[in-house]
């Protein structure tokens, strides 16, 4: 059965590289200057152990991934999936056989009515992709984008559904997509973490569990780059330590560690030496990464890094300066993948529009539109889009019904809707300029090419050169995989 072919990629590589490194370490590492040792690409890769480059099952089309995660779940019928019949039926109640079978978070079934979108939809690109009027920039990339309108998921509360999107099951404890990719492929950078998370606005329901390494070692966990202060937690030396002292200290630490290595012969000590070297390099590289002064003003403007923040009330959009922060994050995502970072997650978590939908989604969509499109455009201009998969998605859709939660005087929002939603992908081997899947007249459920979250993950792994059945890690007696018990590659999406 499948079991026999299972390729426990990382486990095999770890033990192999350890032994190799042990040999080289034992044969006189003590005399080698560390800089020499790690300057060599081969030795560096070899000694990275858990993060050493590893082959995929077959040739990949994508090497890096940028995941724009719109936590809270944007409304598909307002952004991506035009439903004229829903507009016509605005105010009608839903056939009972449809509501009988389903659970809602907040909607009261008895009095629920259909709510058409107030948005206008336009056609964009040669492919004539229909998107709402809030997304003209993304529309300008339509021919590079594959829009999936037939997503569906298993969970209808935020946290479980976010875990579903990021780890493949609606429960805690599993590694996230970025962790799996780093685990499977290793790291291409030896001065930055391989999996980076950038956040704009407030936190998501899932918090760190959205970029966790689960039962995998924390080596594969997403590292949060911060919007203010030092770019990475604890990156800066304590006050008073200048560069030279830091280098002296590093040298002494490594010197003493090497002496211990000679006595103990434990390759873990070699890994420790290596980790300190990488940390030291990261101290130089991370500030350089976040310093945008080398970017042209054309690039800065493309992303809208200095664009003005619209006037807003209270907590709309998730806090202060989200427009600029999100623009900056998109630009940083490009800079990160340029430097060999495997996975970047861009979090924005204010899409849970139970009420005041029109104002809220307009505000958020304008925040998203320009920088997200700029990212695709910029990557393409620089020849990076071919190998970089860009994904833009939330955790589920929103009801075609208005939300009539008890106490609300009128329907101004939509409830959680796991049965259908939309997301888009570009680059990394995705066939752009197409819409995959179709929902029924009101956007309730897919009627063509339904794509389950496990299918979505299977497809992503395929782009990265993995058979999702075989990228596994043994845990509690199971060979666990990102796609859990399901998953079917969506061939239509692949170019």
């Amino acid at each position: 059965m499948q079991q026999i072919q299972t390729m426990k990629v990382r486990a095999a590589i770890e033990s192999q590289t350890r032994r190799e490194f042990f040999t080289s370490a034992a044969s006189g590492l003590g005399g080698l200057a560390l800089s020499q040792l790690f300057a060599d690409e081969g030795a560096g890769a070899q000694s990275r152990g858990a993060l050493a480059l590893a082959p995929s099952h077959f040739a990949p089309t994508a090497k890096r991934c940028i995941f724009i995660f719109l936590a809270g779940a944007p409304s598909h019928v307002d952004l991506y999936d035009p439903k004229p019949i829903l507009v016509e039926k605005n105010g009608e109640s839903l056939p009972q056989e449809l509501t009988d079978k389903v659970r809602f978070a907040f909607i009261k079934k008895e009095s629920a009515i259909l709510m058409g979108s107030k948005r206008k939809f336009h056609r964009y690109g040669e492919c004539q992709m229909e998107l709402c009027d809030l997304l003209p920039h993304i529309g300008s990339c339509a021919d590079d984008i594959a829009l999936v309108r037939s997503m569906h998921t298993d969970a209808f509360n935020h946290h479980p559904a976010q875990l579903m999107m990021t780890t493949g099951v609606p429960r805690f404890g599993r590694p996230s997509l970025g962790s799996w990719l780093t685990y499977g492929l290793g790291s291409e950078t030896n001065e930055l973490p391989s999996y980076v998370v950038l956040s704009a606005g407030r936190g998501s329901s899932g918090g760190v569990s959205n970029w966790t390494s689960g039962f995998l070692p924390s080596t594969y966990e997403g590292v949060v780059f911060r919007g203010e202060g030092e770019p990475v937690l604890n990156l800066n030396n304590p006050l008073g330590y200048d560069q030279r002292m830091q280098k002296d200290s590093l040298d002494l630490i490594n010197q003493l560690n090497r002496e211990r290595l000679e006595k103990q012969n434990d390759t873990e000590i070699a890994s420790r030496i290596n980790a300190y070297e990488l940390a030291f390099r990261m101290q130089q590289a991370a500030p350089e990464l976040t310093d945008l002064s080398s970017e042209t003003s054309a690039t800065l403007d493309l992303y809208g890094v200095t664009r003005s923040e619209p006037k807003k009330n209270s907590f709309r959009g998730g806090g202060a300066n989200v427009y600029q922060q999100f623009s900056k994050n998109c630009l940083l995502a490009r800079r990160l993948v340029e430097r060999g970072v495997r996975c970047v997650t861009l979090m924005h978590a204010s899409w849970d529009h139970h009420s005041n939908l029109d104002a809220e989604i307009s505000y958020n969509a304008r925040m998203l539109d320009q920088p997200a499109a700029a990212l695709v455009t910029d990557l393409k201009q620089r020849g990076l889009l071919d190998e970089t998969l860009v994904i833009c998605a939330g955790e589920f859709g929103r009801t075609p019904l208005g939300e009539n939660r008890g106490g609300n005087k009128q329907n101004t929002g939509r409830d959680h809707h796991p049965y259908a939603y939309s997301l888009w992908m570009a680059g990394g081997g995705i066939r752009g300029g197409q819409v995959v899947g179709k929902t029924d007249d009101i956007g309730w459920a897919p009627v063509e090419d339904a794509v389950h979250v496990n299918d979505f993950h299977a497809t992503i792994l395929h782009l990265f050169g993995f058979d999702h059945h075989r990228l596994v890690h043994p845990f509690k007696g199971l060979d666990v995989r990102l796609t859990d018990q399901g998953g079917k590659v969506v061939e239509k999406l692949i170019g």
Partner: protein
Amino acid sequence: MNKRHCLLTGIIIGFTATLNVLAASHEDEDQVDFVDSIQPILKRSCYSCHAADKQEGGLRLDHRDSAMIGGDSGPIVVKQRPADSLMLQLIAGLDDDRGRMPPEGEGTPLTKQQIDLFRQWIQQGANWPETTDVVLPSSHWSFQPIQLPELPTVKNKRWGRTAIDRFVLAGLEERGVAPSPEANRGTLLRRLYLDVLGLLPPPNVAREFLANTREDAYRIAVERVLASNHYGERWGRHWLDLARYADSDGYEKDRPRPHAWRYRDWVINALNADMPFDQFTVEQLAGDLLPDASVEMKVATGFHRNTLHNTEGGTDKEEDRVKKTVDRTNTFGSIWMGLTVGCSQCHSHKYDPISHREYYQLYSFFNDISEQDIAAPTVTEQLEFAETEKEFQQSHQPFVVAVQQYTANVLPMALENWLTTERASRHTWVVPPSVAVSSKHGTTFKKLADASWLAEGPNESSEIYTITVDMPSISGFRLEVLPDDSLPVKGPGRADNGNFVLTMVTAEVRRAGTEDEFQKVLIARTQADFSQQNWQVEKSVNTNVDDGWAVSPQFGKSHQALFQFANGIQFAEGVELRIQLEQKYASGRAHNIGRFRISTSENDGELTLQGTPANVGSALAIQSSERNAKQQQVIMEYFKTHNTEYLAVVKAEREHAAQAPKAPATKAQSVVEISTPRQGYIHLRGNFLTPGSAVETSGFMVLPPVKPREEQVDRLDLAQWTVSEDNPLTARVTINRIWQRYFGVGLVATSDDFGKQGELPSHSDLLDWLAHEFRSQGWSLKHIHRLILTSSVYRQASATRSELTESDPDNRWLARQHRARVEAEIVRDLALDASALLSHRVGGPSVKPPQPSEYASLTYANSAQWSTSSGDDKYRRGLYTFFQRTSPYPMLMAFDSPDSTQCVTQRSHSNTPLQALTLWNDRVFHECAQRLALRVLTEVPSDNSSEKGNEVLRRTRIKYLFLTCLSRYPTDSEYLSVVKYLDSQLSQLTENPKNAETIIGERPFPQVVATPTAAAWVALGRVVLNLDEFITKE
């Protein structure tokens, strides 16, 4: 139901006719004997997949009851109806979708004759005598009873110290490998402290140990650490990994669990007291069900409360409860059985003999749990409370005595006095028979059946109601304002919010039936049952017309006010009383009374709102000599409420009593069993919304049965079964985990899987010997610790042996000790300990040491607020750090702390640059470097005033630094490297005195130490805290 199933049903119906016809032809044939004809076929063709060791599709055919229950698809035999029996359809291959049994490649298909035998047997009633059950016992090693193995003989008689050593050495000798030499003394001592306490040996202990070569020095050290209360912290944390302990709910809302720590304290205390592991088990699983369960036993069940809990809006409560029950079942399986039972949640276990049905039988033990928080003061709190309570009682005694004395000595006389002088003070309120009501500005009144008046019509902002009554004599009147459905918010006022404002009350009288002028009456006293703040009833009779009586926010109910005259009024003709109720609230909005009733009294004594209670009145009406004891008592109690002196004494006593120390508010999370048990069902494909057939509460077939104490098995029976003599798993699994903590890998490497997918034990006899010893020595954990710690195996050096890296890369032969970076919490503890910052307090609520402020903001809408602890609480051991599930403490996570969402038997040990950055730069660790330098410079003081150029002093300090952090002295080459570093830093810092000042921080160093020197030592301290060896158990 999907299409495939519908299709299947169709096919089956099609077959039925044919089959029943076929069956009919066999009716006259002889009885088929199960043992002779059927069982041999089952054995030959079916048992390889459907017996004790394997139950494909949840089906077991070696045991009558199991076979008759059927598998995941339901029953397979319908007696006398072969056509409807799935078994026959399958062995005959009649269903294309399901295929034929046994499947191709798994066994020979049955012959036509054999199939006919089955058909006939079912037709005849599928007679399966119970006594014939073969019930093949599982052959899997971990399900076999634990036997005491014999100690193997070894050639090398000098090396071993304990039985453990005999088993390991025998294995090594078999392979021709010699054990490693004993570890250096410093390494050994440090290993012992790290393993048992998670702390460093204090430098004086280390120094003494290095110098002490007595044979028993190590044994003494072992006893010392086992007696330390930090043992419970170290090993308690291991247990908390299993128990998925956290201080918050998890999920979006991730609410804090302020009482969770109480369970953690229970674990720590139980381990420190070396509570036998069977008791430790039973109390956690079912302490609430033990007879006369103590608070501590209930606290132990907090184990079950460590599940996640979803309070996100719109969550299905039953779904959340089911998820918790599943987690409880799986956690039980992992911790005590070492089995991945969770696999059977959706389908029968692929590898282990656990069916889908059996999973839900086990699940049923946990299905009746209900969550309950209980008052659970700790022992210390109870003692402290008893102490302060005692002190308070002493100071309170005089107040109690005062009340008693007044009651005994003064009150009876006062009552006598009152009865003679104020006898008349009993009174009743009477509604006058004739009442006239009018208004000044148009309000009309409707008289209701209860003699009250409802205001209607115009509702002007300034209004006066005039009420006139006739009575023989009047000493005061009572105004009742009443609610009514017709009023806003039911009144009693007519204002929008139900209020009214009575700005002025006047009373006038004249002789009844005359045209005399009304004479104004002085209202001497007022009282109301309730007055709005700043709108007391007395303000309705003062001279200020702008204030008055109002009743916000007590709307919708009745209120009373009484107005007592200075003197009672009595005329021969009777009294005509005219009351005017002015309602001129200055806001301009009408605030008139909506419904009211007037009554009067003629009593000269003090009027009360309710009048004299009926029972008091009737008691008073009786001659004092005629009253019985009860009547006297009634009068006395009534009198007490009117005796101001008595009231003052009582008030003083009450006020002092209010200052009594509060009983400790500490609570604990605990569970109870619901009174009506839930019926358990199979959840088809693990989905609780699609229940399958009902299940009984029961254990697993492959293991000895769980026996009920009474009729029905329950959670306590399961707990007692878990630690019973015939359960082979608990002792093995527990011993294995202990071994794993000491040697990195368990004797069974897959410590969470003792099933068929798990690895076989490397030393099965050793495992069984220890398991047997564990049970026969009263389940004492410390006994096992002592055995391991004093063994020669444990005392070996840990250096990797290059000659064994090929043949034994994972050290399963145990030819050396294991070398490993310590766990996240211990990394922190060691740094704090080395720098003498560590708080050694054991137990108590969780703390919040400093962390970057933005970190918690990554949680949903900042749900996790982090208010940093102060004082010593900043320096508590890592296991006390508040564990917020959605934003755990970053330092802990960087070092692979589990996320505490599920039972973890083995942590990963990553080695990352983020760890380097944490140790280098995290503010806690930097403070440790500062204090470590300070410690070394003060604990090794200079013997004269000048430190400069004192090489001996510097050498002593470097040695002390190494001793403190690494429990050893530096090698010559290490010493030279360190000296070179110190010199270089010193010269740099002398050139940059500002850097030096910043580096040493705020805490002053000894004056004789120059600032650049101090700073160089801080930098050196930082280096040592970053050494691989520092955070490693060697």
